């Protein structure tokens, strides 16, 4: 009786392992009928689906499967384990530089991408800048409007609690702008000066938010009166007012993990081509008010809505462009000082 039970157990075990092995083998060596990408999800993901994936699939017949959320940790896990499950990975500019330093990404084939005209900062050898977003000042309609970050820091004339991002790469830059540093002279960041500037406001900051959706929610809940927020969450919200003046402009990129399947990679270049076209970017901007990197975007979007977008002419010139290389190189030290700062709150 015992021997039969043992035999049955072994057979079941081997069957399961065999099944698992065959499914694994079945997925290797596929000609790309399907492309996988890792992106941040939410309305941003929807914008990619409607504006870029649709025309791409119509042209090439290749299905694109989106996964979310994305992180540098996931990229590292893929590359270190050798199993590249996503051919395109979305990363913020600073994370791209970090990934580059860690040797996690491959150069892109710009000839294959054959992009429409793009802003220079979107054309890195190993990353494709696909979406601009801004960190701007926001307040509830009816509160005193702000013009500059110095106003944000001025609690006497503009009373009320504040909310700032729990990300030193954003908040230190904003603190310097509040302290009077000109946008062109922002980088390299004077970290000591930034923390000194934060000391002046920290008692009035009720929340250091981590999720993009927190900022508008805190404003609507009357938890805070003024906040820094990511522009896409704000500009179409009727209850909130904002200004792009002195906003921090940043770019999100798509990268290819090191060791990606070459056939999948060349297919992905076609998708990146779609992302570079102004007419597609205009469609994306309808879904989420972020613009792509095309220099011709102004012509493609509805002029009445131009003020909503980070890269419309009027908005682009009043903002400060973040420097991801500096931020990435100094990320570890800044993060440690930031955590130290938060412990002292």
């Amino acid at each position, binding site marked *: 009786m*015992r021997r039969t039970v043992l035999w049955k157990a072994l057979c079941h075990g081997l069957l399961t392992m065999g099944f698992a092995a065959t499914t694994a083998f079945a997925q290797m060596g596929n000609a790309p009928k399907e492309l996988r990408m890792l992106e941040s999800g939410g309305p941003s993901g929807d914008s990619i689906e409607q504006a870029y994936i649709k025309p791409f699939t119509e042209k090439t017949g290749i299905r694109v499967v989106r996964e979310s959320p994305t992180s540098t940790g*996931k990229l590292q896990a893929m590359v270190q384990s050798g199993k590249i499950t996503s051919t395109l990975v979305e990363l913020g500019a600073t994370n791209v530089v970090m990934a580059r330093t860690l040797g996690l990404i491959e150069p892109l084939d710009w000839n294959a991408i054959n992009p429409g005209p793009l802003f220079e900062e979107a054309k890195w050898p190993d990353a494709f800048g696909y979406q601009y977003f801004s960190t701007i000042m926001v307040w509830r309609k009816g509160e005193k409007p702000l013009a500059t970050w110095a106003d944000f820091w001025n609690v006497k004339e503009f009373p009320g609690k504040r909310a700032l991002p729990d990300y030193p790469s954003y908040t230190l830059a904003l603190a310097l702008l509040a302290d009077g540093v000109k946008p062109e002279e922002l980088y390299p960041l004077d970290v000591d000066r930034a923390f000194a500037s934060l000391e002046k406001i920290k008692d009035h900051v009720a929340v250091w938010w981590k999720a993009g959706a927190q900022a508008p929610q805190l404003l609507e809940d009357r*938890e805070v009166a003024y906040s820094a927020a990511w522009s896409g969450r704000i500009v179409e919200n009727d209850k909130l007012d904002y200004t792009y003046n002195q906003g921090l402009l940043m770019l999100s990129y798509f990268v290819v993990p090191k060791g990606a399947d070459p056939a999948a990679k060349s297919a992905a270049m076609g998708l990146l081509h779609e992302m570079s076209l102004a007419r597609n970017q205009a469609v994306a901007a309808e879904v989420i008010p972020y613009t792509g990197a095309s220099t011709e975007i102004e012509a493609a979007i509805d002029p009445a809505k131009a003020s909503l977008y980070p890269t419309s002419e009027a908005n682009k010139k009043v903002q400060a462009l973040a420097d991801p290389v500096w931020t990435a190189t100094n990320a570890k030290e800044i993060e440690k000082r930031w955590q130290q700062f938060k412990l002292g709150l």
Partner: protein
Amino acid sequence: MSRSARSPGALRSPALWLVVPLLLVMAAGFNLPLLVMLGRSVVGAEGGFTLAHFAEVAETSVYTKVLLNTLRIAVITTGLCILLGYPLAYWLRRLPPRWQMVGLSMVVIPFWISILVRTYAWIVVLGNAGMVNRGLLGLGLVDEPVSFLYNELGVIIGTVNVLLPFLVLPLFAAMVKIDDRLLRAAETLGASPWTTFWRVFFPLSLPSLAAGAVLVFILTLGFFITPAVLGGGRVPMIANMLDLLVNQMPSWEIASAISTVLLAVTLALFVLYLRLTRLEEST
């Protein structure tokens, strides 16, 4: 089949062999990654054995401070759970059986609601425009909304709320087993109600209370959602720090070193928990 001198029957039992596939899956899916993580904390950049990562964790005051902060919040949470949970369990014990059901279900039903939903519910209740603040403002007791949230108070409220059932339910189960006749015997021997409680009832419930407290402590150490949502960024706990180190930096070696320290602390506490529950079974 091999024989063991201690338990000759165990290894021959068919039940053991049925469990083997499950054990293999657990070994591959759980124990192996755990060992890889532990290994990562002692492997240097070139591949040799090194304690440099632990040294870096010990030297960086931020990591040790956050660990201590987490331990401190865990102690406070455990203390509050005991203060609130013991009377609750005692009161439940003395209810007639039908009301006991009602009382127990009120403790258990929040378990069935997602922790994220519960955490956000606190924002509705305790936020600046929430029910409590609006009540206080309306009654004129305060001029400005009180900050219950986005600070340590909010985190502790949220954590105690989530972990209280973990203390109350085992404690209640142990209290129910305490024989009423012992208490009555103490009374007939002339003990006052307080003496009966303190010298007869409390020591009998103590092992279960201690075990529940250790459980709550261990769970608080790993808490992530509640400090992330209700802390407003000003309550750094170790799980949030690990999220940063793993997903954003990524500094997996440092994260592994910190995780190993956390695992060691938790294992030590778990051994304590086992000792206490064994104590309870023998009384």
